[in-house]
C-alpha cells in the first residue's frame, strides 16, 4: 500500500510504485480534473502540485509522491476562489478547456513565486503548458488580472 496526501486528505492506495501519479489520481482516487495529454511531459495538461512544485503527473511515479503533499485542481481552493481561478472565469479564458486545469496549476506556482509577473515572466513560466485552441493571449491577460487580485487580497 502507498500512503498519499492529496488535497489535504490521506489515501492508502494499492498500486504499483511505478504507476504514473496521474493514473492514481484519476483512476484510483477518482479526481478527474487533471487531464491526460501526451504522457511524456510535453504538454502540461497533467500538471499537479507536488510539495508546491508544478510536476507533470504523467511521468511522475506514484512512489515519488509517497508521504508528500499533492494538490490537484480540485484542491487548489475550497470554492474556486484562487485568484487564478477567479481571473480565468472573469476573462473567459478556456475554449475547449481540456488543458486549463494544468494551465491554472502552473499559473498558481508563478503567482506564488512572483506576485507581479511581466509578460516575459509569464511566457517563461507557462511555456510548458500547451493549448491547442491557442488561448495564450487570454491566459496572459488572466494571469495579470490574478496577480492584481492576489495583491488586493494580500493588502486587505
Amino acid at each position, binding site marked *: 500500500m502507498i500512503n498519499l496526501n492529496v488535497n489535504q486528505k490521506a489515501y492508502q492506495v494499492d498500486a504499483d510504485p511505478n504507476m504514473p501519479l496521474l493514473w492514481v489520481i484519476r483512476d484510483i482516487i477518482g479526481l478527474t480534473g487533471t487531464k491526460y495529454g501526451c504522457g*511524456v*511531459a*510535453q504538454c502540461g495538461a497533467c*500538471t499537479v502540485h507536488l510539495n508546491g*512544485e*508544478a*510536476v*507533470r503527473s504523467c*511521468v*511522475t*511515479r506514484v512512489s*515519488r509522491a509517497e508521504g508528500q503533499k499533492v494538490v490537484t485542481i480540485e484542491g487548489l481552493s475550497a470554492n474556486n476562489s484562487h485568484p487564478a481561478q477567479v481571473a480565468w472565469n472573469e476573462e473567459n479564458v478556456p475554449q475547449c478547456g481540456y488543458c486549463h486545469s494544468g494551465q491554472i*496549476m*502552473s*499559473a498558481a*506556482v*508563478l503567482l506564488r*513565486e*512572483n506576485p507581479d509577473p511581466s509578460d516575459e*515572466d509569464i511566457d*517563461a*513560466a*507557462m*511555456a*510548458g*503548458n*500547451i493549448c491547442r485552441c491557442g488561448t495564450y493571449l487570454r491566459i496572459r491577460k488572466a494571469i495579470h488580472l490574478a496577480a492584481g487580485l492576489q495583491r488586493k487580497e494580500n493588502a486587505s
Partner: protein
Amino acid sequence: MKQQSNSHKYSGTIRAFTVVGVLLSVICIMAFGIDAGKHTAAPLNLTVKKDSVASVKAFKQVYTVLMSARCMNCHPSGNIPLQGDDSHLHVMSPRRGVDGKGVYAMKCANCHQATNTPGLHTPPGNPNWHLPPASMKMVFQGKTPRQLAQQLVNPKQNGNKDLKKLIEHADDGLVLAGWNPGEGRTLPPISHAAFKKAWITWLTTGAYAPKDK
C-alpha cells in the same frame, strides 16, 4: 666537589638537549605521520608530471566527449538547455534560472525524475538534474579545444574546482548520466572508463591547452 659541580652542570645541559631532542622528534614524527596519513587516504594520484605532448593528446579525447550532445546539451551558450543528438534548443524553452534548476512552473525536476522515464522521447532522469548556475555558466557550446581546456582548469570558471576536485568530477552523478541517457540517445564517443583515463592523464600531465589552428 668542583668536579662534581661541573658534572652536575654538564648533566643539566645534556638533559635539556635530550628533552628538546625528544620534543623535536615527536613533532617530526607527528608531522610525517599526518602527512603520510593524508597521502595514504587520498585515493587519487595527484602527482603532476608535465608532458605537453601526452597532455594535448589526452585532451583531444576529452574534448570529443565534452562536445558530444550528452555533455554539451547541459552546457549551452544561452540560458535554454539543448536537446537531442543534434543539440537543438530544448522544446518549450525551459530557462536556466538563478540556480540552474529552472524557473516557476518550469523547474527541471517537474519533468525530469530521479531515473530515466521509460520509452522514446521521454525525459531522462537524475536526482540532481540541473544546468550550471547563472553566476558561473561553464559554457561548452562553441568553445575551441584551447578555450575549453583553459576554462576547465580555471577555478573562477569551473565551479571552484582544484585538481583533486576536477579528477573526482569524472565520477560525478550527472557526468555518469551521460553514459545512461535513456532510450534513443547516442552515447558519448568513448566509454566512461576511457574518458576518465584521458581526463586524468590530461590533468596529471600538466593540463596543457592545445594550440588553436
